[in-house]
């Protein structure tokens, strides 16, 4: 195919042209600083609050509970570090999972170096949190449970409602990293007892560099970025007006089109999954079959290594990922795949394909054809495959 086939929507997405159009006036025509006194800038304050309202609405939250940040990572850092700060009198214990994004895990490691105690809960072979382990991990000093809504690698969605209930029962704050879920699946923070929620616009066809942290009214965490009085004194820095407007627009479109997008994605994903499992031997799908993001497929091809596969797919104009794009610099085997019990060599052979509504059946079929050929080629080169066939 001449055209690029983009199957890495969990890494980032195309900003929708309508979103860019919505942003454009705020660069050159209406560029004022929303904190200024004059009318010209008051318009910018208004559009920022409109975007806030759209997002609050999407979550069943109040407008004033949405705080803009520079992205999912900042939101995650904020939620964890500021909770430790604000609730120090209650305790210094956090519970999270083994399959969180590095924005959570590395923040936890940082906090551990500063005397915070962290329990990392196991997941089962499908990546679902072990709820009994969670309940047992709770201590009188536990101040926060942070469990991601949906996993960025294997797409597994956690039993958020049950986790929220456990948190509530024990009077512990509940934060969820919903960077992969917001705008993709319905979320209601009240139904789910969520106290804090992180999201990032570029995962839902919005711009990069903008995210938010939902903070339930009454949660007393303060700033992570200190300075000016922006975001009701909780997040300093001149408001990124164009990006905020774009985030509002992207959220609006995401909510309006959610159902049809899910339909398209599930249909394409099922085709992809079915053909791979039927046509490529020694392939295994990772993550839960049911509790799963509509657009995610993660599969391991035994005896081959992921980066080789990615490069060869790339040469066929297919953009895909092996584990989180954020960590592809190191290409260590994914901590998520290890946590669901895969041996290292299998984890190394993982492929993540994350679809979006613009993908077509033709693209999917072409992709499977290429995967078949490449996997075959790589296995012919693989000493592990050689050993395996010899043994049989």
């Amino acid at each position: 195919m001449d055209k690029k086939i983009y199957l890495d929507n969990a890494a980032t997405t195309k900003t929708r042209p309508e979103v860019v159009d919505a942003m454009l006036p705020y660069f050159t025509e209406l560029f004022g600083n929303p904190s200024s006194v004059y009318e010209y800038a008051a318009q910018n304050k208004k559009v920022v609050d409109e975007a806030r309202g759209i997002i609050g609405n999407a979550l069943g939250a109040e407008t004033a509970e949405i705080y803009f940040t520079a992205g999912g990572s900042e939101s995650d850092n904020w939620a964890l570090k500021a909770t430790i700060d604000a609730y120090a009198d209650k305790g210094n214990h956090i519970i999270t999972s083994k399959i969180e994004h590095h924005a959570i895990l590395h923040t936890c490691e940082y906090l551990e170096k500063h005397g915070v105690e962290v329990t990392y809960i196991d997941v089962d072979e499908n990546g679902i949190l072990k709820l009994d382990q969670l309940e047992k991990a709770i201590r009188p000093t536990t101040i926060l449970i942070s469990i991601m809504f949906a996993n960025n690698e294997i797409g597994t969605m956690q039993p958020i409602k049950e986790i929220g209930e456990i948190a509530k029962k024990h009077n512990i704050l509940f934060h969820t990293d919903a960077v992969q879920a917001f705008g993709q699946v319905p979320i209601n923070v009240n139904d789910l007892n969520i106290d804090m929620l992180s999201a990032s616009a570029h995962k839902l066809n919005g711009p990069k560099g903008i995210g938010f942290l939902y903070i339930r009214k009454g949660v007393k965490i303060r700033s992570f970025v200190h300075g000016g009085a922006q975001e009701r004194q909780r997040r300093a820095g001149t408001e990124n007006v164009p990006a905020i407007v774009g985030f509002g627009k992207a959220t609006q479109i995401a909510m309006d089109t959610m159902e049809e997008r899910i339909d398209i994605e599930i249909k394409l994903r099922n085709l992809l999954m079915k053909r791979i499992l039927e046509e490529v031997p020694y392939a295994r799908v990772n993550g839960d079959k049911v509790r799963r993001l509509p657009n995610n497929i993660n599969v391991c091809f035994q005896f081959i290594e992921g980066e080789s596969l990615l490069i060869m797919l790339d040469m066929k104009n297919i953009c895909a990922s092996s584990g989180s794009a954020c960590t592809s610099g190191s290409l260590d085997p994914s901590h998520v795949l290890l946590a669901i019990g895969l041996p290292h060599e299998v984890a190394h052979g993982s492929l993540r394909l994350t679809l979006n509504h613009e993908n077509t059946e033709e693209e999917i079929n072409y992709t499977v054809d290429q995967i078949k050929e490449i996997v075959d080629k790589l296995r012919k080169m693989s000493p592990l495959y050689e050993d395996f066939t010899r043994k049989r």
Partner: protein
Amino acid sequence: MYSEKVMDHFTNPRNVGEIDNASGVGTVGNAKCGDIMRIYLDITEEGVINDVKFKTFGCGAAVATSSMATELVKGKTVQEALQITNKAVMEALDGLPPVKVHCSLLAEEAIHAALWDYAEKMNIKIEGLSKPKSDIHDGEEEVEY
């Protein structure tokens, strides 16, 4: 991220395959790190590397360094082959990204391991060659599909 030479050797790797009744076979690396290389050598009675084949499980750089290493040793004497360092492999590939330098070390090691196997089989001692250290099954279990 890779040079053209690396991409060439990755997409059209030279000398992929096996050699039946090879004079020496060496396998290095381990699955945990995601790189395994196996080199087969066919060595003449005069000690010349007549043929060489490889199999590699690993990233683009691992495949390319294996391929280049086999090209470099082919036709060489055992002593000449021993002189081929990872640096030579990298240079022949117009360089590697810093995080991939270990792949070229693995290629050097794989050659040495195959030569060691040859020496053991022939019951000879090759000047300047020591026993390879890596084990491809470091703490890994088989997986059922």
